[in-house]
């Protein structure tokens, strides 16, 4: 790996809610997030719905405004400050950072042929000079995603979920991006074809050196594909670590609870899960102190008033918990 592609420092994204002069309220979807994504890596972002993982992904794509902190992109050719990026640079950044959506049924226009869908970014961004060049790029990209010429002439309805997702991937890749944010890209697929799409993404990472930010709620999928994982809860990062280390030795109580909630494939291994009470609080009513204290089995008074900072617990392994050392010793 050669340095970070994305560096975010104390990044926050807030959405103003309420119309009146006095009942203005800013909903903090992403709160004080510091992270870096190495070039060519497969970076996983996990969390429950409402944890802000999608918003964080969009902020790094500059698809939602950044309201606090900073985010920098540097791929060796160009370097952008995403907060202050100008119109012309943003146009160039769109080429370099792309998004794959969750639902391949909703993401593709039913009225366009697959060729037109994949060619659209090229035409909109004016990346090719003539139709011939466009066709060539489309064919080349489609082949990388295992779509043949015959497929290009058809409309999306003729394809199954897995094939549609490959079309979405081809569309994201056609502009030659360095960063691809894959937001729950396999969540809508059946298990039998999910593996196929995951293997394709890994291949693209290896062969083209694309950096992926893989947003998912499925920990076992993340474990198998990502190099580095960040766990989010209510807009905050609670733990980040290299995948293997995180899965071998999770430190944050929330990460531990997430792991034990995965249904085991062993029928004799029932009811062992360390149950988490309640649900993720509404971002409108965020708890004081540590955001997780309302559900944490290890909560003490300090957690309710003081917010823990993300601190290093081992090489590249960061955790935001007041009691992680203590819990490690008692384990």
């Amino acid at each position: 790996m050669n340095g970070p592609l994305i560096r975010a420092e104390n990044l926050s994204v807030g959405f103003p809610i309420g119309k009146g002069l006095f009942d203005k309220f800013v909903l903090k979807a992403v709160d004080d997030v510091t992270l870096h994504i190495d070039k060519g890596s497969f970076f996983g972002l996990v969390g429950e719905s409402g944890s802000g993982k999608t918003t964080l992904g969009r902020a790094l794509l500059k698809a939602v405004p950044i309201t606090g902190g900073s985010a920098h992109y540097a791929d060796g050719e160009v370097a952008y400050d995403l907060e202050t990026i100008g119109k012309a640079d943003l146009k160039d950044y769109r080429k370099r950072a792309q998004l794959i959506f969750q639902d391949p049924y909703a993401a593709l226009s039913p009225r366009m042929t697959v060729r037109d869908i994949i060619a659209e970014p090229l035409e909109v961004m004016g990346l090719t000079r003539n139709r011939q060049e466009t066709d060539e790029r489309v064919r080349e990209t489609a082949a990388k995603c295992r779509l043949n010429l015959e497929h290009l002439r058809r409309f999306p309805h003729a394809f199954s979920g897995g094939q549609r997702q490959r079309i979405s991937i081809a569309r994201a890749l056609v502009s030659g991006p360095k960063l691809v944010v894959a937001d729950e890209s396999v969540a809508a697929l059946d298990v039998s074809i999910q593996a196929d799409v995951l293997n394709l993404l890994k291949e693209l990472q290896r062969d083209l050196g694309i950096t992926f930010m893989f947003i998912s709620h499925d920990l076992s999928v993340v474990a198998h594909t990502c190099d580095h994982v960040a766990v989010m809860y209510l807009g905050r990062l609670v733990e980040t670590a290299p995948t293997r280390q995180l899965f071998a030795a999770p430190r944050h109580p929330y990460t531990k609870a997430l792991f034990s909630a995965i249904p085991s494939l062993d029928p004799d291994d029932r009811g062992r899960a360390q149950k988490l009470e309640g649900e993720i609080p509404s971002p409108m009513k965020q708890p004081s102190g540590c955001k997780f204290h309302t559900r944490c089995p290890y909560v003490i008074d300090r957690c309710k008033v003081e917010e823990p900072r993300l601190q290093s617990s081992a090489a590249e392994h960061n955790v935001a918990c007041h009691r992680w050392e203590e819990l490690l010793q008692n384990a």
Partner: protein
Amino acid sequence: MSALLDVKNLTLQFRTDEGLITAVEDVSFSLNKGEVMGLVGESGSGKSVTAKALMHLNARNAVYGPDSRITLHTEQGEVDVLSLRTPRDLKVVRGGAISMIFQEPMASFAPAITIGKQMVEQLQLHGDMSKAGAKEISVEMLDRVGISDASQRFDQYAFELSGGMRQRAMIAMALSTKPALLIADEPTTALDVTIQAQVIDLMKDLVDEFHMGIIFITHDLGVVAQTCDRVNVMYLGRLIEEGPVREVIRNPKHPYTQGLISALPKLDNLDQSLTAVPGDIPSPLERPPGCVFNTRCSQIVGAACTTIGPNEVDLGADHTVACHIYKEVAE
């Protein structure tokens, strides 16, 4: 254990503009009281349509095969489900002896009627009950499924509850009429893992308490391993493997079941690469001749696979499989 449900040679086709589409073909299974059966398969395998047939809930264009029989054993005697016609007769299977929980609880509750009113309404429909009595039972059920402040929640609308709460309310509503059979169609798919673990726990407790039969429709084998006694695996409208949950998960016999299990990302072995089942499930308009799985099967044993539909082979230990590989061994 006594029998609760017998499904014999269920064949179900839909009349459409493109002709008759076969959704379910020659499916037979039975369920005992207090037994939890998993119905597993990918989208398009016919699992939901099969479940809906049990309540005679399929659309008007559904055509049942001439020898299809669904027999429900109730306290009042046997009910031949497919012969029921009038809404009054159908009440026995729709919400009476059989209840159903759907995947998306937000879509299953009427948005403009309070949860309590909906619960009372169905209780009064199915039993001779005063409004006050029905309310008492409803609040009791809401409390039983772990909803705090049940009497307050009773007067709330579905949108006021969180996803997990809504699914709990759905379960409370389904169980309030004391059904003999509960059909749960992907009840945890839309939920986060931590909430899924809570709902699975709740369902296990309720089985012990109410002793009803459950048909658990899911594509998640982990959920099956955690909840079910038996598993039926479906593919393209056919039942391809059936057996006790331990047998099927530890010792899968059908190439499709084997593929499904090896496609699952497992947490205990991160080095294992994911193998997808090649290809996609064919459209029901293009059902392959012979074994329905032959277009994706990697273990074809001969011409029989593409010409003759395999019969069920009894492998002992209550485990049956419909595949030509085993027929040859048996002969």
